[in-house]
């Protein structure tokens, strides 16, 4: 790693904490951002010649704090003459600072994810202030022109100030709902990187890594929150499959067809460790359940050798926590796979067919191709080729994803040939 790359890495890692300390001190987002930019310019010049200090975060905070004071002085015209160069920061000065360098990132996260900001603004602001991603990078990640993203960030910062959005950890009665919102933003950042097939690969990878980093920071700052750890585990476990999720042409590869030898074992291990910590807190929630499902897939040597019975039970729990058609379809498939017998398959198929009888789900089912794809796969396994072919056809008529279409097409041809 070159010195410049190393410095860049430090900037990224320290950005959120330094900015949070500055906002805490000055109560002003814009001033804090400007002062930090000044300090980063200083750091680039100084560190390349005299080396990286022992505690770069404290160094940046000290210098940024001075730059902020300079900027404040400059705006009060009487003291314009005081605007002169500072002496270099001494070793003692930043060591002293380190002791009083509080971690205010939690406050900053809650401010950035305040529900009175539009969701897209929450996401951009979180990436910018806590992740240290620059405006062009965020613009590219969300496929919007750079000026649009710059405007979105400036508006959000202005609203924080103008509307009096507080900079603090919410009081206990507000905490659960605000924490949910914060977790949702982090998961959204992750999914933007993980699930989207648009945008270039380096940016998507960066979003996943950034979401995991933020999740890790949050888990460290809120050690008693089981769902925070659940989300971190879920992201690590999903991310362990990132390399095998798309083929060389950028097409989606189904879980059952992925090359499991290429899954990231270190990430799987880390995810399972975090999940165990979460479960030990004894406060179950949907992120933990989803992480547990993901862990069972990660540990299975093959799709067939997966612990489908356990997965079916977990989907059962998840369906009670957050009922949705997606969960119901997955639950039925797990039930069908769990038995490994024609009876099991028929039971799963029955569960799927029942969804068509309930008015609520029946309406959603008509436009949801994974439902027909799941029916078709179970019918195929039951060797009801004609019915399976019809279901594949129905799924194909609803599916817009190229890789999924290729899979459905292949199965349809098989069914018609037999």
């Amino acid at each position, binding site marked *: 790693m070159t010195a410049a790359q190393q410095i860049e890495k430090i900037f990224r890692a320290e950005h959120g904490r330094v900015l949070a300390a500055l906002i805490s001190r000055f109560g002003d987002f*814009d001033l804090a951002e400007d002062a930090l930019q000044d300090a980063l310019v200083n750091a680039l010049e100084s560190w390349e010649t005299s080396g990286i200090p022992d505690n770069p975060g404290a160094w940046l905070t000290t210098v940024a704090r001075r730059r902020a004071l300079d900027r404040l002085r400059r705006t009060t015209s009487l003291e314009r003459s005081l605007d002169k160069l500072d002496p270099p920061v001494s070793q003692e000065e930043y060591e002293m600072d380190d002791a009083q360098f509080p971690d205010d990132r939690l406050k900053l996260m809650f401010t950035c994810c*305040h529900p*009175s900001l539009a969701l897209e603004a929450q996401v951009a602001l979180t990436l910018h202030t806590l992740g240290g991603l620059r405006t062009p990078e965020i613009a590219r990640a969300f496929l919007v022109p750079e000026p649009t993203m710059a405007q979105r960030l*400036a*508006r959000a*910062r*202005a*609203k924080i*100030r*103008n*509307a*009096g*959005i*507080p900079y603090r950890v*919410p009081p206990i009665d*507000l905490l659960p709902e605000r924490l949910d919102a914060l977790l949702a933003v982090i998961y959204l950042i992750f999914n933007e990187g993980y699930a989207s097939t648009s945008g270039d690969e380096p940016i998507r990878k960066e979003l996943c890594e950034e979401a995991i980093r933020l999740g890790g920071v949050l888990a460290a700052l809120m050690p008693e929150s089981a769902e925070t750890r659940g989300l971190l585990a879920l992201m690590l476990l999903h991310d362990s499959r990132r390399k095998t999720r798309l083929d060389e042409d950028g097409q989606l590869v189904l879980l059952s067809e992925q090359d499991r030898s290429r899954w990231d074992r270190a990430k799987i291990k880390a995810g399972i460790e975090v999940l165990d910590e979460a479960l030990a807190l004894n406060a179950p929630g949907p992120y933990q359940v989803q992480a547990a499902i993901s862990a069972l897939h990660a540990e299975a040597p093959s799709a067939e050798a997966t612990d489908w019975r356990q997965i079916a039970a977990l989907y059962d729990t998840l369906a009670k926590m957050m009922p949705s058609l997606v969960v119901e379809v997955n639950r039925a498939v797990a039930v069908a796979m769990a038995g490994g017998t024609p009876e099991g398959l028929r039971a799963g198929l029955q569960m799927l067919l029942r969804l068509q009888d309930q008015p609520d789900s029946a309406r959603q089912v008509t436009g949801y191709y994974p439902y027909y794809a799941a029916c078709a796969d179970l019918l195929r396994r039951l060797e009801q080729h004609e019915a399976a072919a019809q279901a594949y056809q129905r799924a194909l008529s609803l599916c817009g994803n190229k890789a999924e279409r290729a899979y459905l097409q292949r199965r349809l041809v098989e069914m018609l040939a037999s």
Partner: protein
Amino acid sequence: MKYLLLMYADEAIISNYSKEEFLAASKTWSDFVQDVTDAGVLISNSGLAPVANATTIRIRDGKTLITDGPFAETHEQLGGYILVECKDLDEAIRWAEKVPTAQYGSLEIRPLWFQGLSNW
């Protein structure tokens, strides 16, 4: 900070109240006003006469145009305001949640203009 809580609701809801419903609503209102006064948060408040009594004016090319009714016909009408002094937006949201109108209409929370407001 000073926040104006603007109350929007379908006027028909209140005008269709039975006598009992009206009395119950009046009680809810006076309880709320008492709370917000006791907390030292209230600066001023008032309901507005129904939009049928509204007049809109605009000056174009130096001429005043006067029209009947509100600026735009909408589902919910501005029915009143409450001006409060709060520490931050979260405190303003808490008071807005207590306004009876929030149960059937909506509350818009607007900070008053102040010197040094950020542009945008």
